[in-house]
Each structure stands twice: as C-alpha cells, then as structure tokens.
C-alpha cells in the first residue's frame, strides 16, 4: 500500500516540480524580457507600473503626434506587414490596431490605380527617389472605395538599409466627391449656358483683356476664338446708334452701379446686325474697379420677333385708324346733305343732297362688303361657284362696275381685248369683284385725267390680266406689301383718295382661291403701277388681238347750287373750304351758305394758300389729307403769309387721334374737328367769332 502511495507522492512531486519549472521559466523569461527592455508594464497585484524606457519619452511624443494626426499613418515592414498604424488609420480603414498589426497591408487596404501606367510611375518614383506622392484609390478590406491623397516613403534603419514603408494617406473621398459634384454642376451650368446660347466672359480692366467662352465670340459673329478681346474690342462692334447708350451703361457700372444690364445691336464681321443682351458685375479692389464679369447672349431672334409683333400691332393700329377715316369720309357729305335737307325746302337741293347720300352710302356699303369678304376668306367661309367662263366677260363686267369711278376722275381707259376667247374655270362674280378692285385702285391713285390700260392675254398656260396706270406708283420697297390687309403703304397724309389695302388684299385672296397669283410692279414713286393677275388655264386656244379704245368719259361736276334760303347770322363770315373731295367740299359750302355765310372752295393745299391771300377768309376749314401740299403745310404757309390776319384755322379731318390733334396745333391750326362735322357745332363755332 506504501508503494502506490509513494508512487503517487512521487508523481505529484514530479508534477509540482514541472509546474514550478514552468513558473521559474516564466519568471526567468519575465526577467530576461525586463532586462532587454521588451516590457511595457509590470503588474503587481492590482497595480500597473508603466516602465519608462530610455526611448519612451521620444516614443510617446512620436506616438502622441501621430495619434493626433488627421492623416492615416501606416508603417509596413519589408515583408509588407503592418507594423504600425495610428488612430486615424484605424478610423479610416475601420480596423483596430490590434487586428491589423502583423497582417499584410491588404488587411487595411489594397491600392487601385486608374491605369497600369499610373501604378508603374508610382513604383518607379519610389524605387528611384524613395518617395512618391499622388492620388490613388484605397479599396478597404470591407470593399469601401476611398480616394486618397497618398505619400509613400521608404524607411531606412541606422545602417541605411531598407526597413519598411511609411504610408500617409489622407481620405479625399469627401473632397473628391465635392469636387466631382462641382465639376458636374459646372458641366450642367455649361450645358445650360450653351443651350441657352449664353456666353461667359471675365474682363480684366487693367490689361483690357478677357477670358471667355467661344459662345461669347459667337455672339459677335466669330466661329473661332478671337485672340484678344477687351472693352475697346467690344465697343468697336457695337452699332453706332447704340454706342452712346452702351458707353453710358458701362461708365455707370464702373462708376457706381457695380452692375450692368443692357441690350444693344452689334455688327458682325459679315455686316449683319444682331441683338445681344449683356448682364455683368463689376469687381473692385480698394474701391477701384479691377474686373468685370458677366454673360452675353444673342437675342436677335427674340428681338426680330418682337419687332415683327410691334410692326403687326402698328399696322393694326394704322389699319383701324385708316378704317375709321375711310368710314368717316363718306359720312361727311352724308351728314352735310342731311343738314342741307333740314334747312332747305328747295326740291333741287334735296335731289342733289339725296344723290350725294346715295352715292356715299353705296361707297360705304362696298367698303364694308370688301371687309366682310376678306374676313370670310380668312375664315375659310367663302366658296367659289366655278364655271367655264371667258376672260372677256370678266373684263367687261369689271369695266362696267368700275366705270363710275373712272368717269368721276375723268380717266381714259384703254382696253386690249384678247385676240380670241380665253376660256377657263372661275367664279365670274368673284373675279369681276377682284378686277373691279384693281381698276378702282388704279383710278384712285392716278391723278385726274390719267390713263389706265387694261389687257388680257394667254401666256404660258395662264390667262394674264394686266392693269396699268400712270399714277402715283409704289416705292419698290413697298411692292410686296400692297396686298397685305393691314398695309397702307406709308401713312401718307396726302392720299386724299383714302385707300387702305382692303381692296387689294381682297384681290389677292380671291385670285389665290382660283389658284392664281397677283403681283404689282412699279418703276417707282410717281411712275405708275402695273398690277398683274395670273389665272391657270385648263387648255390652250388661239387668240386674236382686238383693241378697243374707251373714249374718255368726263362727267361735269354738279354746278354749285344757288341757295334757296339764306339765314342771316349775327355776322356774315367769309369761309374758305379746303377739301379735295368734291362731294364733301360742295356740300359743306352749301351748308355754310344756308347758315348765312359766304364761302369759296379750294381743291388742294396750294390753291388754299393762294385763296387765303386773295379771298381773305375769316375762317378756313382745312381738310388735312390733300394731294401735294397737305393741310398742315398749307396752314403753316398761310400763317407765315398773313401772320397779322386774325383768321380762324380749323382742321377738318377723319384723323381723330391725340397725335393728330397735336400735329394740328403745331401747324398753327386753332381747332381740330373730326369728320363728319356736327353742323350745330360748326354753326355755334362760327357764331362765336
């Protein structure tokens, strides 16, 4: 029993001995480690004694500095193992120091390069100079992609042999993201500017040179960048008419305003005029303007569209004013005639007045009919009643309709009939209407006793109708516009004949409905006009020339009536009536006689000036729209001629806008009456003298 016990004791002793040896080995190892300075701290019970080695202070200083650094600091040994990383590196790569130490670099990150060449360059720099600095990507162990500004340096020991690699990496991702967002935003801005055709510029005032985009130069007509551009260059491109305004804008901006917003015209190298828009800011240094930066855009399209709109609007205004004038013109004799009929019992006067009313009424009706026709065609509500007709029928029918007007102005009509019948498909009524309008127009714009030629012939599969007059003609620039509805070529005051383009606009529309065309030709103002109507022919047929001369059909103006009844006013005045419209003048003169005043008539401005001197009127009733010398000019001349005379000058016109009244006042006219005159008003005006 003793032996086993002995054995057990021996075994236990051996075990204890072994444990003790281990303890001793531990203790020896600890002592060895302590002696060779491999220990950081000693633990006694619960106390921890930190050992201060000779290099501890320096180490702590170093590690404190590194710990404070924002940049990740990593040291790799020659085998590529991580032997040091600071707190920033732990954060940046998301790996605690204890996990990373001793592991290969890939435990923290794997560098990625934009290209193999970049990687090669970095390796080469490190090999050659022991240092490389640049931007690359660190892919972390968890797959995050960091854009880092990185500097790699070789570490060497006291003997100068390679000891490892120091990597300092600053995470650039946030900044890089911001930079890339900025670049994207910049690209978007550039795109926006480019699509809006906006150019940018930055002008240095000291050197008068600028940095700009190509779009800037494009705004001035250059498809390639201009080598040098300054304020002076800019000014040299500005349209002379805008230059003063532009310079004022620039000076104000540089002087005190600090900003500039302007639109102006520029002249391109090819001579074309473009509109540009500029917005700019002035930058100062010590109060002195140093530079100016802004944008520029070509706004020609918008400007021209605006101009076209304004033009259309202006034409509409003119049209409405002309329309009012046109409608008022026939109303004057109607109103006068009615006044005559009220005041007189004379059957002869009544008959004459009624004839005048009927004539003017017919004119009014036609005017309104024309307007309605144009409107109907515009709205597509007019349909043609097509039938096979002969052009000679159209000519004859139109001559019949236009005859009264031709005769009234004592025009001579020469007709060259087609040599043989020219048959085509057309609406007889509408074509007659069109041709009548052309003839009326010719009669209107040709001075009394003029010559009007009408012809029809076959030409190249078309029937061609020509109306030629030797009247006032049309300026070449306006030839294209005469058929437009709202155009009345030049708002000439001297077109006593009225005319507002309704007639010709209707002609164009009617002819075009027939598949034809209409053109006007003129050698110039005062040199007559030729209007050519072309209508398509269905088939060909020979023709024979046949000319028929229309004898002049003068019609004597009705003799001035002898007043049957005379009212004696408080004072019998001498009144000069100036009006080229015979009906208006005659009826007004008759009305004045009935009111008990003496009157005489001048047909135009020059006659009015002469009669003002010889007849010595108390009152002059001056129509403004007169052929040649207009009412304004005549009034000025009369005022200049007899400045001492106390004559009442009264403008009598269809033009009733404020601007017209102002013009009357400036021309020396005392009153401005709008046609038709209210006889009561006229009577009281005369009585007040």
């Amino acid at each position: 029993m003793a032996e086993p016990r002995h054995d057990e004791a021996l075994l236990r002793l051996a075990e204890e001995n072994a444990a003790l040896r281990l303890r001793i080995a531990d203790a020896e190892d600890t002592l060895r480690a302590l002696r060779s300075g491999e220990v950081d701290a000693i633990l006694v019970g619960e106390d921890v004694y930190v050992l201060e080695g000779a290099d501890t202070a320096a180490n702590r200083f170093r590690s404190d500095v590194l710990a404070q650094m924002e940049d990740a600091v990593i040291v790799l040994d020659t085998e590529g193992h991580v032997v040091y990383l600071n707190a920033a590196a732990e954060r940046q790569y998301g790996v605690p120091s204890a996990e990373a130490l001793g592991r290969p670099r890939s435990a923290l990150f794997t560098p990625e390069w934009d290209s193999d060449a970049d990687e090669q360059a970095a390796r080469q720099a490190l090999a050659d100079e022991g240092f490389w600095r640049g931007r690359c990507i660190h892919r972390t162990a968890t797959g995050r992609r960091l854009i880092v500004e990185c500097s790699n340096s070789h570490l060497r020991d006291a003997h100068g042999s390679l000891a490892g690699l120091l990597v300092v990496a600053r995470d650039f991702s946030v900044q890089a993201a911001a930079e890339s967002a900025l670049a994207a935003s910049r690209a978007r801005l550039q795109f926006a500017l480019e699509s809006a055709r906006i150019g940018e510029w930055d002008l240095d005032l000291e050197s008068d040179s600028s940095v700009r985009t190509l779009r800037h130069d494009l705004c001035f007509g250059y498809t390639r960048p201009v080598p040098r551009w300054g304020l002076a260059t800019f000014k040299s491109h500005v349209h002379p008419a805008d230059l003063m305004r532009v310079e004022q804008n620039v000076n104000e901006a540089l002087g005190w305003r600090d900003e500039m917003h302007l639109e102006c015209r520029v002249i391109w190298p090819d001579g074309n005029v473009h509109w540009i828009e500029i917005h700019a800011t002035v930058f100062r240094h010590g109060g002195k303007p140093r530079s100016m930066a802004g944008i520029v855009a070509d706004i020609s399209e918008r400007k021209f569209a605006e101009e076209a709109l304004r033009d259309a609007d202006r034409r509409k205004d003119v049209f409405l004013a002309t329309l009012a004038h046109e409608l008022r013109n026939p109303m004057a004799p109607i109103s006068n005639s009615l006044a005559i009929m009220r005041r007189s019992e004379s059957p002869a006067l009544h008959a004459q007045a009624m004839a005048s009313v009927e004539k003017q009424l017919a004119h009014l009706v036609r005017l309104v009919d024309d307007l309605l026709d144009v409107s109907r065609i515009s709205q597509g509500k007019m349909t043609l009643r097509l039938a096979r007709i002969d052009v000679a029928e159209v000519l004859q029918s139109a001559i019949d309709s236009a005859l009264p007007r031709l005769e009234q102005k004592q025009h001579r009509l020469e007709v060259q009939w087609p040599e043989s019948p020219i048959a085509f498909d057309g609406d007889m009524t509408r074509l007659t209407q069109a041709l009548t309008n052309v003839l009326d127009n010719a009669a209107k714009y040709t001075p009394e006793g003029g010559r009007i030629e009408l012809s029809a012939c076959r030409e190249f599969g078309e029937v061609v109708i020509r109306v030629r007059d030797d009247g006032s003609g049309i300026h070449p620039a306006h030839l294209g516009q005469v058929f437009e509805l709202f155009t009345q070529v030049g708002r000439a005051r001297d077109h006593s004949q009225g005319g507002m383009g309704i007639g010709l606009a209707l002609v164009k529309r009617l002819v075009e409905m027939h598949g034809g065309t209409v053109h006007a030709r003129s050698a110039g103002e005062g040199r007559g006009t030729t209007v050519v109507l072309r209508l398509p022919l269905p088939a060909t047929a020979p023709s024979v020339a046949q000319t028929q001369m229309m004898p002049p059909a003068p019609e004597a103006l009705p003799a001035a009536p002898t007043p049957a009844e005379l009212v004696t006013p408080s004072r019998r005045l001498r009144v000069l009536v100036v009006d080229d419209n015979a009906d208006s003048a005659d009826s007004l003169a008759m009305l004045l006689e009935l009111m008990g005043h003496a009157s005489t008539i001048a047909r135009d401005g020059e006659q009015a000036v002469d009669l003002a001197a010889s007849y010595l009127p108390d009152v002059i009733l001056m129509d403004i729209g007169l052929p040649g010398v207009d009412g304004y000019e005549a009034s000025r001349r009369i005022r200049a001629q007899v400045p001492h005379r106390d004559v009442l000058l009264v403008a009598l016109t269809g033009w009733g806008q404020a601007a017209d009244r102002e013009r009357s006042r400036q021309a020396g006219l005392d009153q401005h009456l709008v046609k038709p005159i209210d006889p009561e008003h006229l009577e009281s005006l005369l009585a007040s003298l």
Partner: protein
Amino acid sequence: MHDGAKVALTLFVRGTGARSVRAIVNVRSLCERLMPGAYRLDVVDIATDPVQARSNQLLAVPTLVLPGGEPRRFVGDMSKDDRIVEALDALRTGCATDG
C-alpha cells in the same frame, strides 16, 4: 473550419506601447508563418480589460498565453521566437493529433 479546431492565443498588451505593438506584429507574423488560418489571436489590452489580466496572474506585458493543461506564457516583444516556435509546434501537432 470552426474556431474549435483553431489554436487560441491570447496576447496581453498595454495600449499602443511600443513593445506591445512589436509583440502583436511578431506573434501574428509567427502564426501566419507556422499555421496560417489555423489560429485565433486575441489581443487583450490590460488598460481596457484589467480583470482578464488579473485572472491570468500576469507579471508583465506584453505576455503571450498559449493554451494547454498547463498554459505556457512568454513575456516580451516576442522577437526571440525560438522557444515560442517550439511551443507553437507542440501545440500544432497536439492539436492535429487531437483533431
């Protein structure tokens, strides 16, 4: 391979002390060299985990504790690795025999 088949090593260190850092580097390099993928290294900082340090009756840090019926310990920065290699080899073969 689950953790049970791995050799579990514990390295006690003190913060980022220079020898502690060196010890981590050296132990990890050693393990990677001798038994890559077959070990688990737990680094315990006595500053943040003093209880573990006391229960292991440490004398100094850094100290590497190897598992076993009578755990082996090594003190220092583990730069003298002869005995550690020997001990690790023993562990590895023991482990392999066990497994």
